[in-house]
């Protein structure tokens, strides 16, 4: 009986290992491609990304090379395109932020342009918001319009936002750092605003300090 159980386990183990070996590389490529696509949508024109893993508490920005299974997952992407002469041009950075929405965990990407000092693109990549209500944050054009140029200027010292990102009731946006909520999806809209605010407060000062390095685009 023990021998039989051992044999069955061995067969099963072999099948799983084979499946893993066959699929591992495709899976990694798929994940990388999905990420490239999502980043490209947030910051259009991107042809090349350099990935970084940012630890906001320790204040470190380290390069996270492609296809590396170990180490922290990348959460900051320096984006470049190419001019006609084949030179890379720095477009901005895309950050990944996560937080809690109305229906559960939510993950978003946002593009930050250091030149404009503004958030210039936004996309929800994972959410569990209520279909028909909260999930309007995925595609509502007026709402997404908030993030075409959302002011996230840093203060004089460069280590805090000059104005917090505020989410205001639908139709009452007056300042460029405010997010106009969707009526009927106020909780989800506010969750997005708060998530961006919390992440921008932590990330942007760090990005400013490492900006030269990011512009170089790694090694």
């Amino acid at each position, binding site marked *: 009986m023990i021998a039989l159980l051992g044999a069955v386990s061995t067969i099963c183990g072999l099948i*799983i290992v084979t499946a893993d070996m066959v*699929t591992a590389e495709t899976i990694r490529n798929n994940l990388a491609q999905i990420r490239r696509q999502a980043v490209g949508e947030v910051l259009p024109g991107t042809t090349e990304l350099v990935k970084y893993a940012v630890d906001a508490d320790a204040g470190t920005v380290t390069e996270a090379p492609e296809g590396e299974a170990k180490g922290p997952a990348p959460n900051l992407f320096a984006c470049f395109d190419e001019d006609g002469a084949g030179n890379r041009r720095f477009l901005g950075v895309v950050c990944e932020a996560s937080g809690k929405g109305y229906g559960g965990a939510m993950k978003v990407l946002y593009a930050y342009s250091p030149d404009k000092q503004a958030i210039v693109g936004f996309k929800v990549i994972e959410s569990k918001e209520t*279909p028909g209500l909260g999930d309007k944050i995925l595609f509502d054009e007026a709402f997404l319009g908030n993030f075409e140029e959302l002011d996230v200027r840093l203060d004089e010292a460069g280590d805090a936002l000059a104005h917090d990102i505020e989410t205001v009731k639908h139709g009452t946006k007056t300042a460029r750092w405010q997010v106009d909520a969707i009526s009927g999806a106020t909780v989800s809209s506010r969750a997005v605003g708060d998530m961006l605010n919390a992440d921008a407060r932590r990330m942007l000062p760090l990005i400013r300090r490492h900006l030269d390095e990011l512009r170089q685009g790694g090694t």
Partner: protein
Amino acid sequence: MAGGAIPTGPAGPTHREAFLNGIWKENPVFVQVLGMCPALAITNTVVNALAMSVAVVFVLVMSNTLVSLLRKLVPKEVRIAVFILIIATFVTVTDYAVKAISISIYKAMGPFIALIVVNCIILSRAEAFSSKQPVFKSILDGFGMGFGFAIALLCMGSVREVLGSGTFLGVPLFGPNFEPWVVFVLPSGGFLTLGVWLLFFAWWRERKDRRNSRQGEAA
């Protein structure tokens, strides 16, 4: 409702019966009311229902085959453990395969690919059928039950997608003025849809039985 109650002659079902029973007479969802968890959770769109069906057919056929091959070697006392090990192996393989084929489908499936391990259809087929029947019949039974499951999931998926999102396979059906019945995409809509389908099939069977008995009397 366990699959063990299948009426079979002393020689077991014929090949034809082994295949057809699962599709209609012993349909796992509508007759045996097994595998409710994916049938309710993964049928909000037709694509999800299809992907889930393919995954279940694969696991069912493979586990039926291996269980049937080992049926004379496995001692009675440890058979359930061996079945579960075999099923878990093929579920893991499926998990890798889905991830390699499409990350977006994998995300839509959520935890339900891994939960195929505890899908009672598969364990019940191992216990009630393939551990007692030759390999070829077990494969046919796996396909039959799998297709029966697929038909049920597609019945659920098409109703829920058409009414809940106004689309079929992602293609809009009703034009821009259609207001989707969002409830059908939500879990409660799953229960409603399942209830209506069960009612329909129960009515259909009863009608058929009544006809048969009337014909019997006339003869």
